[in-house]
């Protein structure tokens, strides 16, 4: 196991940011914490990256307990923060070199390691430019170089795709996959983007500080069962009642829309439209997505909370 989390809880004053979280992250997997802003991802990230103390529960990283073995853990993890951590007045090479010094790298080893990192991340021709002149995508690559310069066994990334254009996102994921397959690094990241989580080996869905689901993306989708049908209508409660009376199937109200999960969804669409031509304004049929998984587990839509609560 790369990371073991047991009964982890954390609160800021009155607000419970994490409650009773337990899960294991296996070695050499790409693991994503998915959740809306305010779901507890960032708090968890700060605990795992050793920035925040553990209030309740236990965390082991690479078999070492936090906070007892914090120095040992720090040597073995690489951290890429959401906020840029580059010194803009320094060049690419200086940023990497100064970071390396914090981990004890020096001399010939340091030089060869910097060369390697620049090569891996395609930064060799920008090595002596100040980071303030780089694009967002290139800066993120320098961040990755900083995070990997001491060859950590676990790389933690907080919302790594934020602020990147699609091309840079693809580059990022290619690099993460390469780290995993060639260097055996365990990758742990947080994201609020459903399509990004979909690329991970396993996903933990966090909502209001609680773990609501944990599995591979495919199995999570399969767990929703069948297809999802979403209907917009004037009076959802009435329609739900009528559907139940007529077909004896369960429908739920998800924030004003009627939602059904059924096998053979395409047949149901015509049945429903024929049965209730008046109240149905629109009807959509979809294969289950991670958003459906989220709705299924929490009873509300993924984006509802965005904007309501602060990221913590």
């Amino acid at each position: 196991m790369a990371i073991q989390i047991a009964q982890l809880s954390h609160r800021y004053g009155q607000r419970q940011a994490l409650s009773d979280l337990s899960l294991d992250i296996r070695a050499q997997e790409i693991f994503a914490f998915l959740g809306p802003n305010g779901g507890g991802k960032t708090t968890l990230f700060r605990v795992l990256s050793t920035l925040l103390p553990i209030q309740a529960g236990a965390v082991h990283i690479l078999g070492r307990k936090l906070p007892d073995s914090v120095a040992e853990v720090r040597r073995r993890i690489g951290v890429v923060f959401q906020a840029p951590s580059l010194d803009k007045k320094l060049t690419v090479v200086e940023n990497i070199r100064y970071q390396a010094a914090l981990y004890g790298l020096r001399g010939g080893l340091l030089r060869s390691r910097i060369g390697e990192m620049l090569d891996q991340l395609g930064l060799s021709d920008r090595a002596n430019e100040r980071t303030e002149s780089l694009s967002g995508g290139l800066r993120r690559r320098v961040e990755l170089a900083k995070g990997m310069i001491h060859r950590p066994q676990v790389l933690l990334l907080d919302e790594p795709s934020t602020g990147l254009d699609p091309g840079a996102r693809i580059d990022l994921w290619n690099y993460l996959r390469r780290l995993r397959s060639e260097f055996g690094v365990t990758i742990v990241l947080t994201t609020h983007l459903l399509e990004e989580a979909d690329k991970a080996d396993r996903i933990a869905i966090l909502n209001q500080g609680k773990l609501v689901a944990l599995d591979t993306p495919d199995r999570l989708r399969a767990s929703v069962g069948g297809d999802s049908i979403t209907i917009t209508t004037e009076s959802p409660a009435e329609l739900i009642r009528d559907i139940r009376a007529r077909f004896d199937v369960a429908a739920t109200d998800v924030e004003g829309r009627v939602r059904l999960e059924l096998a053979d969804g395409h047949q149901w669409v015509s049945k429903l439209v024929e049965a209730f031509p008046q109240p149905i304004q629109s009807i959509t049929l979809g294969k289950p997505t991670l958003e459906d998984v989220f709705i299924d587990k929490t009873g509300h839509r993924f984006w509802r909370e965005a904007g309501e609560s602060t990221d913590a």
Partner: protein
Amino acid sequence: MHEMRTSQRGEHTGGEAAAVDLEIKPSPLLAATTLCWREIVRFFRQRNRVIGAVGQPILFWLLFGVGMHRTFQLPTTGGDGPSFLQYFFPGTLVLILLFTAIFATISIIEDRREGFLQSVLVAPVPRWSMLLGKVLGGTLIAVAQGLIFLVLALTLHVSIGVVALMQLVALLFVSAFALTSLGFVIAWRMESTQGFHAIMNLLLMPMWLLSGAFFPAPELESGMPTSQWLLHWAVRLNPVTYCVAGVRNLLFGATASIWDPALTTCWLVTALFAVFMFAAAWTIAGRRTTGDLL
């Protein structure tokens, strides 16, 4: 080329490679010297900081020195007291140290806001090595700026021996170390540079004004007004007074006519000031602040 890359990859796969890498021990001193060097590199890449930290005090010195030339008179017996340009010189030197030291530590607020600090805080080095790097960097910048200004002392026909000069540089170093640590204590918990300017005006400028830099402490006499008595003690209890007096003593010798601590006292107080401020900075840096998470 291709072969070489493959071997590099091979080196890193599996647990063995990781074990090789763990032989590299993090070194707090390497971290501190690196962070110190970073301060210096950053400073000289921000030209306005260089100009501001030396330019303003020089301007002060010239304008006040020339402007106060006629009105300023030390209570000497004869008319052979120091001119104001001369009297004001050590104070200006300390002001340069103060400005530079303070502006160097403001950068901790920027480091935090720009996210640089986070990556230092999760590195396997103790907090004191981060602190030492910051304070040492600020100190060296401040001393370098002070030495530039010191060249102007030649215009005052100062004759200073090699030993006294070495002592002076050492005293500037210790004073700057104390002032940078003080700056760190103030800056560590601050979330914006605006707050720092308020502290600058409310604490640091009065501290400098009451250091004998600008005017000497009134003599203690029986029957003196309370305000004068308070002023005397405010100057006397201010640690910066001893930095200024030490510099003055080394440059111009003891001034007989005013209250003036002995050079040994200056050394002792300045050294204690440095030790105390660094200890305070160390204590405060060990605490987590909400700002760690900005």
